[in-house]
């Protein structure tokens, strides 16, 4: 009896968590203009709309531009900082490590209001660089955390071995440390891209009509006139997420294999 209740509860929570994601997938392929079941027939019309309708197509391109810019900027800044924090060689390392996580904590609307006022004064509001900068602020914590984790996982003895064999420090860094940290850098980059792709709130505040991203376009479509194009976009997001998640898991397993400390 108790066991049956446990199983039932488990199934209920798992379906609560997963069902909404599964329900939305087939609706991307409906030929109706309504987002409801049963689906009258299969069609590609909403995917067609996604890639041909001007508003959607431009928003996809904008997301790719902003996402790439954010990924590059956040990965470079975050990786450098994680390297700088590695051996606590800088005073207040602990403080910096905590401070770098704060963009995840501060409510997005609060940051958005501040950014809008400041970016207008600085002249970067309603421009691509402005949006990229805003997204980068949010993406930074993910890069720092991922790169720091992979640096922490490196076995010091490998570096010492290289040094004892006569490699100068910069060679040890280039040939040993960096290759071992690469998986963390890559998963940080994936997180940075995903953060940018999904960002709505800061985009509402700092982007103009010309920088409307896919997430922003989805937000106003749900708000103003919901159409099955939303489900098609969601299909792309979910398949994209699964691919990115698989890459991340693969990269992580590589990190663990290559840098696992011998027992």
């Amino acid at each position: 009896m108790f066991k049956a209740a446990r199983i039932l509860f488990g199934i209920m929570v798992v379906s609560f968590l997963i069902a909404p994601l599964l329900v939305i997938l087939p609706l991307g392929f409906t030929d109706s203009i309504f987002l409801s079941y049963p689906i009258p027939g299969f069609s590609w019309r909403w995917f067609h709309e996604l890639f041909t309708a001007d508003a959607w197509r431009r928003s996809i391109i904008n997301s790719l531009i902003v996402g790439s810019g954010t990924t590059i900027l956040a990965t470079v800044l975050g990786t450098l900082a994680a390297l700088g924090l590695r051996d606590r060689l800088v005073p207040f390392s602990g403080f910096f490590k905590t401070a770098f996580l704060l963009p995840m904590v501060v409510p997005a609307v609060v940051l958005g209001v501040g950014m809008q006022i400041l970016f207008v004064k600085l002249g970067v509001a309603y421009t691509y660089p402005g949006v990229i900068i805003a997204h980068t602020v949010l993406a930074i914590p993910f890069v720092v955390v991922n790169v720091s984790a992979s640096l922490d996982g490196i076995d010091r003895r490998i570096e010492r071995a290289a040094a004892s064999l006569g490699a100068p420090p910069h060679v040890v860094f280039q040939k040993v440390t960096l290759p071992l940290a690469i998986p963390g850098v890559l998963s940080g980059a994936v997180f940075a891209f995903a953060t940018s792709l999904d960002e709505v709130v800061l985009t509402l505040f700092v982007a103009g009509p010309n920088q409307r991203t896919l997430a922003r376009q989805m937000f106003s479509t749900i708000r103003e006139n919901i159409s099955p194009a939303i489900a098609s976009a969601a299909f792309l997001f979910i398949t994209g997420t699964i691919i990115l998640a698989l890459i991340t898991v693969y990269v992580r397993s590589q990190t663990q294999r290559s840098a696992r400390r011998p027992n």
Partner: protein
Amino acid sequence: MRGGTPLRRHLAAALMLMPLVVFLGLFFVWPIITMLSEAVSDPVVVKTLPATTEAARAWDRQTPGAGALGQALVDDIRATTDDQAMGDVVRRLNSAKSGFRTLMMKTLSAARGSTGPLDLTTVDERWKDNGYWEAIAAAAQSRYTDRNLLAALDYARNPQGSIEALPPAASNNADIFKRTFVISGLVTLMCIALGYPFAMLAASVTGWKRQLLLGAVLLPLWTSLLVRTAAWFILLQDRGMINSTLLGLGIISEPLPLLFNRLGVVIAMTHVLLPFMVLPIFSVLIGIPGNLMPAAQSLGASKLRAFWHVLLPLSLRGVASGALLVFMSAIGYYITPALIGGPRDQMISSIIAFYATGTANWGMAGALGIILLAATLALYAVYHRLTSDRALRV
């Protein structure tokens, strides 16, 4: 990393840290400071009407304002070419006392359309009322103001300068804060109610079952927030899956109102935030030695008693950090209430966004933002203390 002498390594580390520190200083800290200063700064009258400001500070508030301040105001209007700044002045004064918009428009054209001394009481009778001059004097008092911060808490200064509560009809920020905390509290309770037993279940099984349960938690976590909100929007509609299933089964005869109300917001937010509850509890539970519960039971405690006196106290830390994480995230939520909620379910973030983008009232947006930020940081400080010595963070 070149060189290898300790000092050079310190320098190299500092150099690598520098770009990010500068970047976040410029684009994370500075925006927040800008928002804070916007909330307390009130420079338009002082900046645009310098002569009036000086006259107002010397004014005794007893003599007719039109005499003492009138000519200074006329001079200031004639000296100003910046129409936008003058517009800001009008807006600022009108928000302090209604009627200023038409009064100032009339005065502007009268002052600009004439030269020499001008008696403002002939332009508009209202200038005889010292209330208008007091409003100007109050605005000219200082470049800084506590007006927005007081208004954010439903207080204001009366003409004598003391603080009083605004009538409930004029301002309902307290209601919105209360609503934000109520919704966040409900979501947190729902997350504990579902998340704690679920984490216990995941910790008690092994192998593929545990992988499945944890995968079910992680997959939504990795999925776009917008997609999850869209999915709930579709599910909760009148013609959505939930209603059509219930209608089909004959349980209800009318579609249940699930969208654009409190229930929908709580369901969708619980879905979004549940992983943040399950993961910290799970990581605490798997750290508890598995033989404690059997030990308690072998000593005669019932299952429930063993849970109450052994497992629950040991796992409370996980519950507390999960609850803090969920509550802290929930009070700043914008997207889910904006899309799933009705007008009566909008939380504080929506009101801030409304002031900022809807009415360009940066001062109020900033003041409400300060309160939200302070609440969030206070909760985060507690969370950080609670988790800093153990790997509980998600």
